[in-house]
């Protein structure tokens, strides 16, 4: 058995989604190799080589791989596929984009968004916005799967000394090409990795109000900022803040929902948080059904009082 994990990184460091995907690889069993793609990623490859239990780090260096273009990632992974029984990626937008392409070219049905590994061929995954959990066994010879990082515990980062090997990287794709990135810049922790998340909903009413209310509370707690779809659609917050079935899935130690009703599509992205706090003026809002601590109050008074209480 051998498993290939495609690393998630920002070209200077690995994201912990990689360590969590390696945890899933360990549950599958066998030798584990990590593939790092992109230009100037030697330091990232060295970091991956230190993860205990990694046999080999494969490095594909090319600018064609810098922008997560699916065609380029597929062209890098496919020639390696014959050596592996399972190929895994964290279920990031990059993994979700590239992995089905890889799976189809291998004539494999992908297992998407795995939350639990039962054995090398059997996995649990959420369906219907997490309202049901499906256990599936693949009959394909090879496993191609994306792993939902929030449900796996990151493996240790230090202690190993794997070898690093270069593998072929593709030339730039001629049919799909990168034009521009508009990256949301923030000093705050990444939403997917944060210990605390403060999210705002439609109740904010404007981008200014969202920034005035949600962001200072997040900063006071050292938290990442999230939002409901309604808040993103209305332009109160950027798209990459969206938490939910079709946005990001988070599972922080503390999730604070302010002015969010708790639609099932939103809950799908945060109901595995350890502690959930809801602030909502409607005592019947569905969010209270899953909140550990509910505060029925207008956020306009509740949030300033909360800020003051945190000062004490």
């Amino acid at each position, binding site marked *: 058995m051998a498993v290939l994990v495609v690393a998630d990184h920002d070209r200077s460091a690995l994201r912990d989604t990689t360590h969590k995907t390696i945890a899933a690889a360990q549950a599958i069993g066998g030798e584990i190799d990590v593939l790092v793609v992109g230009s100037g990623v030697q330091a990232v490859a060295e970091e991956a080589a230190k993860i205990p239990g990694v046999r080999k780090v494969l490095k594909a260096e090319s600018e064609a791989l810098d922008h997560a273009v699916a065609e380029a990632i597929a062209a890098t992974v496919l020639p390696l596929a014959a050596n592996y029984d399972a190929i895994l990626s964290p279920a990031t937008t990059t993994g979700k984009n590239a992995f089905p392409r890889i799976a189809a*070219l291998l004539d494999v049905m992908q297992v998407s968004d795995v939350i639990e590994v039962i054995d090398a061929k059997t996995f649990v995954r959420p369906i219907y916005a997490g309202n049901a959990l499906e256990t599936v066994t693949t009959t394909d010879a090879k496993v191609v799967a994306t792993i939902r990082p929030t449900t796996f515990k990151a493996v240790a980062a230090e202690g190993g000394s794997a070898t690093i090997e270069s593998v072929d990287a593709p030339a730039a794709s001629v*049919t799909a090409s990168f034009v521009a990135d508009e990256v949301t810049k923030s000093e705050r922790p990444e939403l997917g990795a944060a210990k605390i998340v403060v999210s705002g909903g439609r109740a904010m009413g404007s981008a200014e109000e969202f920034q005035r209310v949600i962001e200072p509370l997040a900063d006071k707690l050292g938290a990442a900022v999230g939002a409901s779809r309604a808040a993103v659609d209305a332009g109160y917050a950027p798209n990459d803040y969206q938490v939910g079935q079709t946005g990001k899935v988070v599972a922080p130690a503390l999730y604070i929902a302010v002015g969010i009703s708790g639609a099932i599509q939103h809950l799908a992205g945060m109901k595995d948080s350890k502690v959930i706090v809801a602030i909502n003026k409607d005592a019947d809002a569905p969010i209270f059904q899953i909140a550990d601590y509910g505060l029925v109050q207008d956020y306009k008074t509740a949030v300033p009082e909360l800020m003051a209480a945190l000062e004490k």
Partner: protein
Amino acid sequence: MQAARPTRAEFQVRPMKVLVPVKRVIDYNVKVRVKPDQSGVDLANIKMSMNPFDEIATEEAVRLKEKGIVSEIVVVSIGPQQAQETIRTALAMGADRGIVIVTDERVEPLAVAKLLKAVVEAEQPGLVLMGKQAIDDDNNATGQMLAALLGWPQATFASKLEIAGDVATVTREVDGGLQTLSAKLPAVVTVDLRLNEPRYASLPNIMKAKKKPIEPKTPADYGVDITPRLTVVKVAEPPKRSGGIKVASADELVAKLKTEAGVI
């Protein structure tokens, strides 16, 4: 009213046909219930609708047609006989004709992609516009698989689409923000929620849609083996969160978070 026939020159710049695959799914407002025998979710007497992402794809196709970039919109659905109703909804929104590939089997994204590839080969569209995921299986895979099998470029999670000549410029919603990609047509574009807001079909258009053709097919017509690769062992309820408490004030909340929960 019949549109004016394009001149030869016009035809060369806009002969593009668009294929829009649509899926019949449980309505997004319905509370899903797992069957007691854990064989699946209960779909008896449950409201079914077009997958919301596919409505957005249909809307985008109709807008492209209104702009004169697209000449014909073909809608295809794979599923039980009632998938026809989903096609009718798309026809009422402005699509031109439908193809229903009837099967009562469970059809996985890989098999759907193989069927769609066969439809693409027969129909020769310049663009396939489809939802990024279906809200039942939440796989988020079919569009990427179709692009792979066709050897076409893919642009997924689109929140903006511009077409000029044979290039589609697509703004994509990604984890870090937005990415803009250009893809040479023909291509597969999968759509995200913020691409547009789908229209409601007007009554006259619903009436008109009843006369639009829907061609019935089966997977066998396309010579595609749709046997599932994944065996469903069971479908279970997710663990329930035990209900919490209401606190009376922000002070009490902070005290609980510090002492009881220990998270701040």
